[in-house]
């Protein structure tokens, strides 16, 4: 085993240590120290991840079991890490972006009191720890531990400002919706354990490759497992129908949104499905379902994003939409494309969020873009980086977004031309609403209060440097996956990942690829132009018709409230106020009371009169004698 692999256990351990130090010492640590510890530990694990990555690049991989987590008769689950292309790539994403965001947070959270500052960083570290656990896990159980861990951290961080009951409400919502997905994931794990007797990836996949479709693991089993896993993924990765928590999650601090709800946690579902590609490749039905769900989500979110005015809400829906794209790719079997887009969108989405954070910071907490405008002058760096982010997400060549999105569109085209059309349209929508956002925020004239205008200032270096770095990455990030059409065998990513997820099977003529690229690139350019024309100088207008529908997010929240939330409440009220006291408990008490009542009645037999006593006795005797001598004979 390579020496760098022996350090692998440090990757999650360092953030955990950071979390403990910050958590326990929150009353004693100064802000500098908490920040230093918080980001330093993540930097450490980033460096180790780099080592691991290099080792993996040389074609090595390993599963390292540390200790028995559960060893029962017929079930052995070690606490194991799996180091291979997929996990190492995700390690890089998480630790790098994680580090940048930690640094960013030091400046962003500076108003917090030192103790809650430390609390923030311990949560953040805890999150990084769980996320790394999720990615490193060598079996579904360890993965699940991380899986729930990130859910917990997102709960804690969304509700970080616990005095604000709204944010805690959003936190609860996020946790519970995640838990629904987690439950499905859990069921899938059980199913696998019961059928294959193991939870470790390699064993399960070998077993299924060997017995897939046979009695041991029938087609139904495959469908059930894949569906359950997918439901789990929809929970974490905010897909239909479980996506509504993500926009609300924006109640948390902005760096948190950038880290958890843009770059890393939300990609957990994708990682899981990519990880389980062996099973999925046997489940065509689930695959097409995934692709459609992904597409629908992408479209829905994009339409909603068109009409949002909260800067973070727009970004939130854009993320949901991007994730939809990725699921579309997964559904079409293009795992590489999916991972590729995860890789790129991590950068530009994080960038966009941090940018918005910088804006909000400058605006003194204001998030409504109708009250912004013309910020480009004051916040130059933010503006440029934000613009790069927009271009990247819009998919303008040669920025990263272009290549990854193009790969997805290509796979969609090959899988289902109809899906391709819709996906393309959604991509244009993306470009449109992103530029709407850009223009409303940075161009035109300032629409806020005078006080805000006076307060406007560029953020400190601690915030801008990460922005610049991320902008850089969003530009070049895509170049690891440049299709061979443009530059021959420049697709490093594909070759790197193929051992885990298998190579891109389909091969199409260069002509087709060229056509597709030009179509998307041109379409995007046109859209940008239109958006620029439409929003260069904005004046607030009442949205109407279909757009009003979009503005209200398709009324999905209300729908859920009436279909799920209220019935449950009524049900519990009914049980609590009627069934429990009036039915079950009443029955029990009735029995007890009837005993006393019987006593109350029977005692009147004891009339106190000798005559009646004798009479009763004689009657008893006579009956006995009669029965004895005339009936029982």
């Amino acid at each position, binding site marked *: 085993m390579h020496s760098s692999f022996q350090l692998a256990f440090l990757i999650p351990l360092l953030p955990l240590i950071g979390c403990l130090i910050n958590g326990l010492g929150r009353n004693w640590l100064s802000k500098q120290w908490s920040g230093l510890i918080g980001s330093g530990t993540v930097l450490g694990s980033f460096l180790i991840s780099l080592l691991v990555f290099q080792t993996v690049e040389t074609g090595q991989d390993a599963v390292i079991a540390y200790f028995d987590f559960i060893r*029962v008769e017929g079930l052995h689950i070690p606490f194991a890490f799996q180091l291979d292309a997929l996990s190492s790539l995700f390690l890089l994403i998480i630790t790098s972006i994680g580090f940048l965001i930690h640094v960013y947070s030091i400046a962003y959270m500076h108003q917090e009191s030192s103790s809650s500052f430390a609390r923030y960083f311990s949560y953040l570290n805890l999150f990084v720890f769980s996320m790394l656990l999720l990615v490193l896990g060598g079996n579904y159980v360890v993965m699940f531990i991380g899986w729930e861990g990130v859910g917990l951290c997102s709960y804690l961080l969304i509700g970080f400002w616990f005095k604000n009951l709204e944010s805690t409400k959003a936190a609860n919502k996020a946790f519970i919706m995640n838990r629904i997905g987690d439950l499905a994931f859990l069921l899938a794990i*059980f199913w696998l354990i019961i059928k294959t007797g193991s939870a470790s990836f390699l064993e399960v996949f070998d077993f299924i490759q060997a017995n897939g479709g046979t009695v041991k693991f029938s087609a139904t089993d495959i469908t059930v497992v894949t569906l359950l896993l997918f439901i789990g993924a929809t929970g974490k990765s905010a897909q239909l129908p479980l996506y509504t928590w993500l926009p609300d999650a924006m109640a948390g601090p902005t760096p948190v949104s950038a880290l958890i709800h843009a770059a890393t946690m939300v990609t957990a579902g994708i990682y899981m499905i990519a990880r389980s590609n062996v099973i999925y490749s046997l489940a065509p039905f689930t695959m097409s379902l995934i692709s459609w769900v992904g597409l629908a989500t992408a479209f829905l979110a994009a339409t909603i994003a068109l009409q949002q005015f909260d800067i973070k809400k727009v970004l939130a829906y854009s993320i949901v939409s991007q994730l939809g794209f990725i699921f579309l790719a997964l559904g079409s079997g293009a795992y590489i494309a999916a991972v590729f887009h995860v890789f790129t969108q991590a950068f530009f989405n994080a960038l966009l969020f941090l940018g918005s954070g910088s804006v909000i910071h400058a605006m003194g907490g204001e998030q409504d873009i109708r009250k912004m405008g013309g910020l480009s002058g004051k916040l130059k760096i933010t503006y440029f980086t934000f613009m790069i982010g927009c271009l990247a997400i819009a998919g303008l060549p040669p920025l990263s977004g272009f290549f990854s999105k193009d790969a997805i569109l290509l796979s969609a085209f090959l899988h289902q031309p109809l899906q391709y059309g819709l996906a393309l349209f959604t991509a244009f929508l993306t470009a449109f609403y992103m530029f709407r956002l850009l223009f409303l925020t940075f161009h035109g004239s300032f629409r806020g209060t005078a006080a805000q205008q006076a307060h406007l200032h560029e953020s400190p270096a601690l915030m801008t440097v990460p922005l610049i770095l991320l902008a850089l990455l969003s530009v070049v990030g895509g170049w690891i996956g440049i299709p061979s059409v443009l530059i021959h065998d420049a697709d490093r990513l594909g070759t790197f990942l193929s051992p885990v997820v298998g190579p891109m099977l389909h091969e199409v003529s260069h002509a087709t690829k060229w056509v597709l690229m030009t179509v998307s690139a041109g379409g995007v350019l046109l859209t940008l132009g239109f958006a620029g024309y439409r929003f260069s100088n904005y004046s607030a207008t009442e949205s109407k018709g279909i757009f009003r529908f979009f503005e209200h997010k398709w009324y999905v929240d209300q729908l859920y409230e009436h279909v799920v939330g209220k019935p449950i409440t009524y049900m519990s009220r009914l049980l609590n106020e009627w069934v*429990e006291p009036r039915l079950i408990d009443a029955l029990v008490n009735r029995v007890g009371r009837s005993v006393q009542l019987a006593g109350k009645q029977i005692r009147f037999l004891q009339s106190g009169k000798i005559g009646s006593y004798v009479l009763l006795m004689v009657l008893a005797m006579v009956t006995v004698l009669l029965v004895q001598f005339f009936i029982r004979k």
Partner: protein
Amino acid sequence: MVVLLLLLIPLIGASFLFLYKGDHQFASTASLKLSLVSLLVMCLRLFCWHTPEQLSFTAPWLTSLGSSFSLRMDGLGTILSLLTTTAYFLLFWYMRSRTIERPAAFFAWLLLAQVGMLGVFLAMDSLLFYFFWELALIPMYFLASQWGGARSVSVTFKFFIYTFLGSVFMLIGILYLQSKTADHSFALESIKKIKLTSDQQSWLFWFFFIAFAIKLPVFPFHTWQPDTYEESATPVTAILSAIMVKMGVLGLLRWVLPLFPIASYMWGDVVMSMAVAGIVYASFLAMQQVDLKRLIAYSSIAHIGLMTAGAFALNQLAYQGLLIQLFTHGINILGMWILADIIERKTGTRSIDSLGGIAQHSPTLTIFFVIIALANIALPLTNAFVGEFLLFAGVLATPSTYYWAFAVAVGLGIILSAVYTLRMIRAVFYGQPSARTSMAIRLALHEVGALVFIVGLILFFGICPQPLIDMTADFSKDLFGQTDITSLFRKS
């Protein structure tokens, strides 16, 4: 020998405290020391004493009846004794400064109850089992009525009558079994030798099951429980729900399942339906509670439902999970009760409506509460996770044809548990501080100590649960051997 020690230490303590009345300082110190001693004895058993001679004790007693004073500490007994000793230690530690009227009597009754419960956990003779069963009940009756709230007398009386009613049916079952044994003995071994027809098993099953179902409590026999938990003094509630309910589980694992395997299979669906119905039902009710203690009480019913379902899943995963859960649930719920008690004492209210915003001034308390509450809903890397993981897996793997329905119900319960737990945390700790919670809640050193101990246990067994598994592996193995349906039907 160790088993006898475990019984004698609290017994001596109880009788001493009954005779020699002391003030709170004296009584609590004495009982703390005693509980520490028995905890140490338990640790010695875990690390040093393993031979059968050390783990069992038999003395002639009521020989004319065919009974005998025989105790043995098998896997089940071990984990439950560990729970009992640990929980008592923690509780007494916490209670150093929790003043209470007539302390000597209070602690004496608690210790007496400990004797009874340990006896139930260790008895290998059915009559002896019944003796201890009632012996555990009487002190609880006095504790709950005498140190309880306004309604406690009637509520506790209901609890007593209910439990007693169940137990007398069990007594009839025991007597019947004894009359069927070859050597007219109450010993578990000789009872196991009886060949019972499936009809006999059926009615005996119900006679035993009712007793345990009431004790657990399983829906719909649960109505005594929330009232009793609410009305009793919280330390008493803690013992009731952390240890006493385990008597019911033990009854299922040691008496019902091994003795009536066929009936357990025949009635498995019915019982599991009751259990999972209880899970959902209790969770729904918990969502509505405003009284902190009632809320925890209903959540505890839900947990018990899962345990019961696991017991009748009739496979080793479930058994193993259940055995771990016995310990972890005890520890977690104890923590919950201690915290609830602290909150009630410091803020003077239990209603979560008038609480809120505690987190602002008392972060430490909040952290403890959140960790323990999350452990209570079995978050990974907390001790309850492994248990519920195996339990749930076992329920899904049950031989019943309705496994999917049970799984769905359990899953629903898991989600709802998150709902009401988070609701509780939010209502009690988040938001702006109310009038009652505006000042910081200071925790005494020993209170922090006890809570840290609990959190330590939660995290330790959450990260490496294997010790607990090893402790009980043999038991679950041969329990499965006795109740394995396929082999049973191969035999008959």
